[in-house]
Every structure is written in structure tokens, then in C-alpha cells.
């Protein structure tokens, strides 16, 4: 019998789930959200969009293939989406105490212990998911041992500021270490386009996807005024929490629009671009977190299976007249992207960079790059 400590999940409405601990033996608190993806726990755990959240994986088996090595620079990991685990805790039905994969360097349990993140198994995650579906995402705390951390509401603070980087840096090529941007940015010696990348809590695969398309990337903190240097295209990353906190970013984007140069956004980037355009966002009942969200490109017969992770959405009805929805969720009709009717501005609510999830929409990066070269 696997010896393990009892662990409790207590939701803000008083519901209690009893499980067993397999990760770090300490308590934690955050917003409890579920993800229905069947693969990708290393990517999800390091995804900055999960900042402040307790992740419930509905797929019942966790840890099967261990954890790949933490190779790469903190600013751009080889196998992770961020420099550290951003989730506050992870919950699954069953944990594989023995993993098996050629790339695995340690077990999930070991990684969680190393990063002081609790993990729980033995919880009826389907019952928990249905609870969240019916009552909406809610706060929860994990109690292991005697410590009660109290509830913590991540949406009450500016998570983007927490997840973003602290200084601008230049990524020159895939594999090359980034260098800090000091002073002014020189034009690229090879004549490649420069992309200003606003880090709202960026997933590293966005950087990889841009770099492999032969552009120079300047990654800047969320509130950095990127209008201070010359760029050919603006890219606004994903990020955690409530877009309302990012007023500084929205202001900067609004000013950038006047330049008429290409702008693209992903997830939080979609919401911030929408806000800059004048539209409103709202919180979804329990969000979209999965690898199987169907979206349709409006006015076409093209449909895509997408990877998603967001709790807020753009209100289609508030889009100004010169903007229109670009993609629509085929399940619930929510906004999945917007575009300007005449200017080269567009964004997606889902994750074309995937990682984790299906890669069917990576072509959006190509569309963005094509705009730069026009």
C-alpha cells in the first residue's frame, strides 16, 4: 500500500474533497480551475497563465511520463513554458508513482517537492469538475498537515505583473541566449523584422514560434512602453488573471495602433487588444481550459481544434464598428479572436503556439510574419 499523507481540498463554498498527497507536503491556496487536456502537465504547470490557480486535471492519470530536464535559459526553457511552476497546486484522480519516458529526468512528485508545490491524488476529480461547472470556478485551499493558509483570490491582484519579466531583452535566434536591452535598439544587422513582444506572463513557445520564423524578438515587461523603440510588428502575449489590471498595456497598445503596423495577440493579448479597440471583457463561469475547443473562422468553412486556457473573454457585442470577430467558439459562441476590418490587427483567444495541445493553428504566426514583410 502506497504510504501517503492525507490531503484536503476545501472550496470556498465549504465543499470538502479528501485525497492523498504525492507532492510537496505543505498547504496552498488559489482559484480552483479544471483542465480537460489528456497530456501536457509539465507545460501546464509552468504556464504563467495558471499563476495563482489550483489546477485540476480531469484526465485521471498524472505523472505517467515524468518530467523532462529543466534545460535552457530561464528566459527561454527548452521543455517548459516558464521558468518555474506557476500553478499553486495540482489535483488528479490517480498518480503514477513510477513514470516511464526516455526524456524524463525526474518524477513529477520530485519536481513538485523541488518547487514546493503540493500535489493531490485520490480525489473524485469528475465530481469536483462538475461542481466547478455548475457553480463556477471558485477559491480553494489545500490542507496538508496543520497549516491553514486561508483563501487567496488571485483575481483580486495584478497577476500579469507577477508573471511578466522585469526587464526588456532581445532574442536573436533560436538557441541563442537573450541579451538585456540597454539603451536604444539598433536596427537588425541582418535586416530581419523586429517584433516587440509584450510579456503579460508569456508561454515560452510563443517566443520559439516567432524565432523559428526568422525574426528578432524584443520581449518587454507588461507595462513597458514599447513605443519607445522601432519595431515592425507588435505581439501581445498570453497571461494570467483579469485583463482589467493591464491598463498600462492597453494604453500602450492604443498608441501603437496609430502607427498602423501589424499587431497580433494571443489569449490575454486578444483581450488587451480588444480593450484597446474599445471593447469590453467579462469573466466566464468556469473558463475554457482544454485541448479540444472547436473554433470557426468567421465567414468560412474552416474549423480548428485549439488549445485554450482562459477565464475571461471578449464580449463580441461591444466590439466597435471597425472591428469584427475573427474566430468564434463552436460550442458556446464566445469570442475566439478579433480583427480590424482594414488595419493589420488581429488576435486569437486560443493558443496557436499550443504547447500543450494541438498545433493546428500555428499558421497564425505565419500570417503575422507575412504582414511584417508586406
Amino acid at each position: 500500500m502506497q504510504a501517503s499523507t492525507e490531503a484536503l481540498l476545501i472550496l470556498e463554498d465549504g465543499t470538502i474533497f479528501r485525497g492523498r498527497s504525492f507532492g510537496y507536503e505543505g498547504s496552498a491556496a488559489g482559484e480552483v480551475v479544471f483542465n480537460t487536456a489528456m497530456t501536457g502537465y509539465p507545460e501546464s504547470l509552468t504556464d504563467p497563465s495558471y499563476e495563482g490557480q489550483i489546477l485540476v486535471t480531469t484526465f485521471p492519470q498524472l505523472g505517467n511520463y515524468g518530467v523532462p530536464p529543466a534545460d535552457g535559459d530561464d528566459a527561454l526553457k527548452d521543455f517548459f513554458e516558464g521558468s518555474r511552476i506557476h500553478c499553486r497546486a495540482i489535483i488528479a484522480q490517480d498518480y503514477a508513482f513510477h513514470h516511464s519516458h526516455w526524456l524524463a529526468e525526474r518524477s513529477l512528485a520530485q519536481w513538485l517537492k523541488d518547487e514546493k508545490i503540493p500535489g493531490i491524488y485520490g480525489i473524485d476529480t469528475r465530481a469536483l469538475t462538475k461542481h466547478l461547472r455548475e457553480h463556477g470556478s471558485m477559491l480553494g485551499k489545500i490542507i496538508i498537515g496543520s497549516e491553514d493558509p486561508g483563501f487567496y483570490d488571485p483575481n483580486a491582484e495584478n497577476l500579469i505583473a507577477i508573471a511578466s519579466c522585469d526587464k526588456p531583452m532581445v532574442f536573436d535566434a533560436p538557441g541563442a541566449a537573450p541579451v538585456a536591452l540597454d539603451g536604444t535598439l539598433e536596427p537588425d544587422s541582418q535586416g530581419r523584422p523586429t517584433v516587440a513582444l509584450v510579456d503579460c506572463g508569456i508561454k515560452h513557445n510563443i517566443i520559439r514560434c516567432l524565432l523559428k520564423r526568422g525574426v528578432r524578438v524584443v520581449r518587454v515587461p507588461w507595462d513597458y512602453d514599447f513605443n519607445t523603440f522601432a519595431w515592425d510588428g507588435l505581439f501581445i502575449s498570453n497571461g494570467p488573471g483579469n485583463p482589467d489590471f493591464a491598463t498600462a498595456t492597453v494604453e500602450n497598445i492604443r498608441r501603437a495602433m496609430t502607427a498602423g503596423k501589424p499587431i497580433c495577440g494571443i489569449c490575454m493579448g486578444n483581450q488587451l487588444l480588444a480593450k484597446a479597440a474599445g471593447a469590453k471583457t467579462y469573466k466566464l463561469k468556469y473558463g475554457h481550459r482544454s485541448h479540444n475547443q472547436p473554433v470557426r473562422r468567421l465567414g468560412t468553412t474552416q474549423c480548428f481544434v485549439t488549445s485554450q486556457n482562459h477565464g475571461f473573454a471578449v464580449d463580441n457585442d461591444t466590439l466597435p464598428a471597425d472591428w469584427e470577430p475573427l474566430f468564434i467558439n463552436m460550442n458556446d459562441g464566445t469570442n475566439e479572436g478579433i480583427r480590424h476590418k482594414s488595419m493589420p490587427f488581429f488576435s486569437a483567444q486560443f493558443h496557436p503556439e499550443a504547447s500543450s495541445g494541438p498545433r493546428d493553428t500555428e499558421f497564425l504566426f505565419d500570417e503575422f510574419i507575412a504582414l511584417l514583410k508586406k
Partner: protein
Amino acid sequence: MTLEKKPQKVLLLGSGALKIGEAGEFDYSGAQALKALRQENITTVLVNPNIATVQTSEGMADKIYFLPVTPYFVERVIEKERPDGVLLAFGGQTALNCGVELWKKGVFEKYGVEVLGTPVQTIMDTEDRELFVERLREIDVKTIKSEAVETAADALIVANRLGYPVIVRAAYALGGLGSGFCDNDDELVALVEKALSFSPQVLVEKSLKGWKEVEYEVVRDRFDNCITVCNMENFDPLGIHTGESIVVAPSQTLSNDDYHYLRSLAIKIIRHVGIVGECNVQYAYDPASMDYRVIEVNARLSRSSALASKATGYPLAFVAAKLALGYGLFDLNNSVTQCTSAFFEPALDYVVVKIPRWDLGKFHGVDRHIGSSMKSVGEVMAIGRTFEEAIQKGLRMIGQGMHGFTENREISIPDVEAALKEPTDKRIFVIAKAFKEGYTVDQIHNLTKIDRWFLYKLRNIIDTSAELETFNDLAQVPDMLVRIAKEQGFSDFQIARSIFKDSFADDTDGYILKVRNHRKALGIVPVVKQIDTLAAEYPAATNYLYLTYNGTENDVDYRGDKKSVVVLGSGAYRIGSSVEFDWCSVNALLTARREGWRSVMINYNPETVSTDYDICDRLYFDELTYERVMDILEMECPHGVILSVGGQIPNNLATRLDAAGVNILGTTAASIDRAEDRNKFSAMLDSLGIDQPRWRELTDFADIEEFVEEVGYPVLVRPSYVLSGAAMNVCSNPDELRRFLKLAANVSKKHPVVVSEFVQYAKEIEMDAVADHGEIKAYAISEHIEFAGVHSGDATIQFPPQKLYVETMRRIKKVSAAIAKALDISGPFNIQFLAKNNDIKVIECNLRASRSFPFVSKVLKINFIDLATRVMLGLPVEKPAKSAFDLDYVGIKASQFSFSRLGGADPVLGVDMSSTGEVGCLGDDTDEAVIKALLAVGLRIPHKAVLMSTGSPKQKADMLEAAHLLHKAGLTIYATGGTCQYLNENGIPAIRVYWPSTPDQMPQALDLLHERKVDLVVNMPKNFTGTELSNGRKIRRAAIDLNIPLLTNSRLASAFIRAFTNLPLDKIEIKSWDEY
């Protein structure tokens, strides 16, 4: 809605009889496609001779033709029906091959029939290995390098260049037929020659043994939208056919990068080759890098797609049919949630394990190793929320006396290491044994190449089992350990055996109940979960359910209103129980629902229609063990349970369910027991004055010999405990009897044998009937074409009987009525009789639906299951009018054998069943029905010559007329010694050929076969002695391996020869079912 034009009338090709590699999954896919077409108000025409299927039932298609799915018959149906569209992807390889041939012959073009869905060119691109490799090379997708050869000599050159081991495959073959691994030149030549008999082209390729095998089910619409509905991972590495491997869904050992790398490739492939509908892509995947090879692409619905549909709840066949009509995925709804789109990829919050079911024990001489060619006859699917739970459930479901991964009876494996290296059908239990003997995960991994993840999970089960075994008292076992055991899928039986050990055998049921009550008192009970395609993200509108101990909350509410009727299904398809019981189960569900009950199904076979969640109000995809059925009944609180439509598995539960107070609908458990218990039944027949073959249950040799003295040889011997080989045997002399008893049966007080008188040259007659409170309401008497001695499941059955004395019929009715009354039967039943002259003897009586229920129901056009269900529901049932039993046409049910898959097995028929499927065809007379039915099970009409060896003098005489007809028809007759002499003496020219035992004399019979000089082999053993059986075996086996039609029974051979010599093919009427 994007549909531009819709066809008015669509032809659907079925897959014919169930065979190894092509089984019930195609009834399911075809039935779904028909449903999709009906929804569009399209007239449907179905060609499928498999009369036991659900798709060939009333109301499924507008026109149903019980005809062979061959180009000749299908063309004639097209000529008559003039459909404007045809679907080729729903009837397995049979339909696909037939369609490709018709297309090549220009038949579709000639009659203006549009091939809907995937274009024929795409089908050919994926079926022809060379084209396939080339097409994938165009998009830089790696395939297994293979070279096509057309002779054994070329194969040798290629193999030596690639280096052994190599794998050989036949092009255009289903389920890996004629394929295998070769380690040297000799093995290669043998295999290539066999493969070339099935296919003009054979492929030789380098083997990638030890790589993972992963497959994706991919869907594409004509707008180029693609989804992968499910991926699956084989437990066994490459080298074992996916049909022979335990399979898990979704993949368990792939990282996100692995999963999506292969997923993206699959989509790239399906786009490039241009599938419209569904296909499956199989990969070999390096366990130590991201290197891969595409093994194959199936441009049609497959066994895997049926499994994927059940595993995810995504109705692949239904959707594929809609896409073939021209819809986009975005036009369709997810049929589980009914509010979200069908364009999505299911998210599973459970683990699915598929386990194959083999029946190799039924065959003499068969090679029990599993490999690249398929031998399993069925499969089960188990659902759990841990891998351990799912696999233990599954191992119980396969129904071969196993209780899970542990706590089984000891199996004897002389060399565990060798058995791990060279897997047989006992593979998984060898692993259990290895763990018990102290092998480590790494050691087992090195020998099997099974991913360590699976092995660690299996070891968890072993560890729990070992921990349980440290206790001798239930009360001492920590509650947590009981809970963990249940979470890992341990049954009450396993827990009881591990704790009570030796004393367990004294009161098995009592100890199991003790565990049950103990854990229930602790609150350790299973919960019911829904399969909803979206992992609870959206509410599901269907009740597709399973039970798990990994959970605390039920997904469904129980009303306890006793308004439901639970139907117990038939489990895994196996020899002796297959699609016919699915038909029965489905019809019972439909009737129960029509009569206002909530219909509830329990079954776990992914190849069935009864496990389609829209066929009933609640589907429990779960075990049919006493424990699980009671778990469900305790929650469901039904009005009652029907256990007489699912074959023997539910029937066997009768007594225990009754003891637990379950309301068994229809015939009582006590009556079922009276019919099942040999002694009780015999006593009852005696008291009713009904004759039966003399039999005795005996425990020692002297008694056996004394009894045989009394009844005379031959005798039928049935051991109660089987050591090896077949369970039953006919012994013709003392020598044989002694050998069989020594070899196969360990006779003792504990293991008695039943010895019965074996009546030779007797007719076998079946009575299928429905009774109400002991009164017969409807009946069907059918006769076997073969004499008794051929298992009723293998026999060719004629209905209505054409050659029975009126007096015999009268007596059968009388005896049946007496038995029905004595057992107070309410529901379906079947009695088997022997008739010789006008004497009849009862061989067997089953108080449940029999294998022939769909056949007689469809021939008579009276649905016996509907009647029986209404009886069981207590509704008044009128007897059908007498005239309804008066038919002016004939139905023939013929058996399908899969010997070609079962290397080494002697394709001779005996008292143990060996067929894997059946067809039923109608004709205006016996000849017509016989010819259709036998062509439908793969026989072909000979045009050149027939090789005859006709056994005993009696059989020789029986075959004389047929030989005469063959000669008159201008066919050359080759015959072995005695047969040749007999024919010549009777004025029939025949050319003498020699047995393999006299290799110096020419011509050799085997050479004729290899040179393809004969196109029919009639070969029957003189008697059932071992020597006689082995004598003709080489001929029979060669006929099978070289794909030359073979008949081994004189009466069937005569019937076939009479039919095709009397009735030319073009005189056969093309009539649909409703035209009879």
C-alpha cells in the same frame, strides 16, 4: 448546412459472416451508417448475408439482400435497384475489396453510382503498399521500407538485402492475413508462398520489433477540416498485431510532444491522401526518441474505429456517413451533449483497456503464439479511472475463468523466460506469474519490450495482492487496503481468495458475500460515471455509464421507481456466442422500451450494437459478473432482469441472482437449473417418458469401460475439467478412449467425465420456440444438413425443414410441448433433437434464446425475441396464425470458418464448435439457398477439377451421386486410393493421386494444390481416430493455406455440388428479403 445535393438511394455493403479480423464491429458501423442515411430520408439498400446482425433487421434498411458481398452479386443488385450512391467504408475489408473491384470493372460508372465519401483512388493509394509508400514520401512522411515481390525467389533477395528479421505481408488482406515475421530463409519461403495464395503481391520489410505501436482515428470532411477522435496505444510493442494486443485509450506513455507530433502527422497524411470520412493511422514509435514509421492507413471504418467510438462516445461511423453525403463537421452536433459541435476531439476522464479474446483451445494442433497475424475471435473493453481498475475488469470480462490479474488458478508455464519472449494467448498471465516468481519490472521489460509504465501498474496489483495475502481474517485488513484493492479493480472474489486462502474453496459464494457485506458496511461501494466526450465540461444528455471505485459521487440519479427493465448482454464474442445474441439483446431492449419501460443494458463488448448508447435508456458498459450486476441492480432497482437473450453468461447467473432476491423475468431460476443440471434434466425426461442418448457421469476407468460395453462405440466424452485441447471428443475404440482420457482429462472423483452414447447417421433437429407459462406460442423446427456429430454451431441449417418425416415433426412438437409445460417456460428456449427413422432423442435444452433465433425469426418474419420479451413482461401474446409457418421458400444458415488464420489447426469439424460466424440466405428452393449461403461463406464454384478423398464406405456411397454430377458437369476428378477405386468401379472416371505419406508416387495430391490444378477439395476423415485425422490433415491444411475451397462433410459437399451443378449462377434470383 452545406449540403448541395443529396443522393436519393444509397447502397451499403456489409461485411458478411463474422470471421477473425472482421467481426461485429462492422454490424455496428453499418447500423450507424444506415441510421445516418435514414435521418436524411435516403432510401437504403443493404447487401449483407449475415442474417444474425442488427443491421439486417426490419426497419434498418429499406431493402435488405441476404446475398454474398461479391462483385457478381453486388453488380446484380445494382442492376436491379439502381442506387445513385454507394458506401464502401462500412463493411470492412470485404466491402472495400468488393467495391474496388466493381469500380475497376466500371460497374459504378456504368450504372451511374457515385462512390460516396473517400474516393476509390484514395482507397487504392492506401491499400497498395507501393502506392502508399510513394504517396507518403511525397509529403516526407516515413513509412516502413518495404519492397513488393511477386515470387518467393524475389522475396529471398530482398530479405537478404534488408537483413533478418523481416516481416512479410500480403497486400489487400484483412487483419494481417498471411503475414508474419521471418528469421531465416526457410521461414521466409514458407510464409511468402502462403501469402501469395491470398494476394498477387507480397511485401517484405525490415522489422521494428520493440517499438511502440500507436494509432490515431482521424476524421476529415470535404472542407478539409480534420480532427483526431482518439488515439490508442498498444500494451504490446510492435510485432503483435493490434487485434492481438491489449490496447489502451488514450495513450498513456506519450508526452504532449509525442502525442501531438503524431497527431499532426496523422492530419497531414489524411489531407494528402484525401480521405472524406474516417480513417486510422497506425504508427511504430521509437521508445527512445521521436522517430516513427507509419505502419498503415485504413481508409475505412475498422475494428479500431469501433473501439474508438465506444471508448470516447464519439459515433465515428454515423459521422463518417454524414460526411460522405457532403456535410461539414461544423454542420453536425456532438450526439452525447447534443448542444456542442461534432467538430471537436473527445476528452476522456477515464482509462479504456481493450483485451482480445482467443479461443485457441478449440482447435487441434493450432499454434498458440501471437504475432503479426490476428487469431483472436473477439474483444472486451473495460473502463476505469485507474489503469489497474480497467485492466482487472477487462481480464474478468474475457470470460476464460480468470478473476483479474491475480488470484487466478495457477497456470503451468514450464519456461517463464521463453514465454515472456515468445508470447502466446496467455501473455498477460505469464507476466503475473513472472512477477510472482520474483522477476523485476526491468527484467520483464527486457524480455517483452512492454513499456515499464504498464509493468509498474501491473506490479501495483501484485503488491496489493501480496499485502492482502498477509491477512487471514477480514476484520484485520486495514480499511484503506480494502479501498485501495477495490480502486485497483479487485473483485470481491479476489479479495476473498487472498484472505481465506485454502478454505475459500469450501464455500466460495459464502466468502465472497462476506467480503461484499464487509466492504459495504465500510461504505466501499462503486459509483456510476458517465462517458460524456468532454470530461464533464458540458452536461451529457445520454446515459452511457460505467462503474468505478475511483470516485465518491454518482453522475446519475436513481428513482427507485421499478420502471426499468435490465437486459444482460452476451459479453465478448467467442466461438459459440456472437452477434446473434447481440441481435437478441437489442430486440429485447427495443421491445421493453416500446412497452413503456426504461430499457437498461449491461454489456462490455465494443463490437456490438447493444452497447450503442442510443439503443437503450441506460447503458452500463461494465462487467456481467454477479458482483457487478448486483452493484447495478441495487442502484437501479428495476422491475426485473432479462437474462435469457444474452447466451450462456447471463443464464449462468440465474441461480445466484434469484437467491439474492432479484426478479428474473420469464422462466424461473429453478426451471433454468432443472434444464442446466444434467442429472435433474435427465430425471425429468425419464419421468416424461422422453428418450435421450444414454449417458453416465463416471469417475473411474473401469466404470467407463463397463458403460461403453453397454452402449457400444463410438461414445462422446466430456471431461468436467480440461487439461488441454478441446473439451469434448468422440472416441471410436478403446485405444482412443484411453488416450483421450489420459491426455485430456484427469479422471477422478473430483473431476468426473460424462460419457454418452453417440448415435451415428442421425439427423439433428433444432426446436426454437417461445412459450408462455408452459404453453408454446411460436416455434421453428429446423434441420441440420450434416448428420449429428457436427456441432450445431458449425452445422448447415435448413429452415423450414425439407426432408423431415411428418411423423418426426409431430413427435418433436409433442415432446417440446411436454418439456415447455414441465419447466413452465415463459420466454425463449431451444431444444436439440436427434432423429433416426422416427425415433427422436433430446440432446440438449436451453431455456434461453439460441444461436438460431435471428435466423428463424428473419426467415419466418416473426420476431421471436419480441414475442419472448412481451411474454417476460407479462403482456398477452397471441399465437401467430398457422399460415405464418407455411413458407414457400427456404432459408439456409451456413457457417463461416477462420481456419486460414489459425496456423496449424486441422480444419475438420467435430463435436466442438470451431466456426466464427455464419450467414443466412433465402432461396426459392434448397439448391438456390445453399449456393448463396456457401458462396457467402467464401466457397467458390469450381471450374477445373475437384480433389476427392471421401473417407468411410458409407461416406463414399453418400458422395457417389455428387461425383457423378461433377463428372457430368465436365470437371476433372482427382481422387486418392480407395476413393478413386470406388469411383472407377461405379463408372466415374477419376485420376488417382497419392497421399503425402507415399511421397515417391506421382502425382502427389499436395502438388495438385500447390500447382492450383484443383479448385475444390472434398476431404473427409474415415472416422474420428487420431491417425485418420492426421492422415488427411496435410491436404486439408494445404487447401486452407492455399485458399482453395474445402469441404469436409459428405452431406454438405453433396448439397453444394448438387446445387451448383443444377443451378447456374445466372439463374439465381436476386430478391430482397421483403420479396420472399
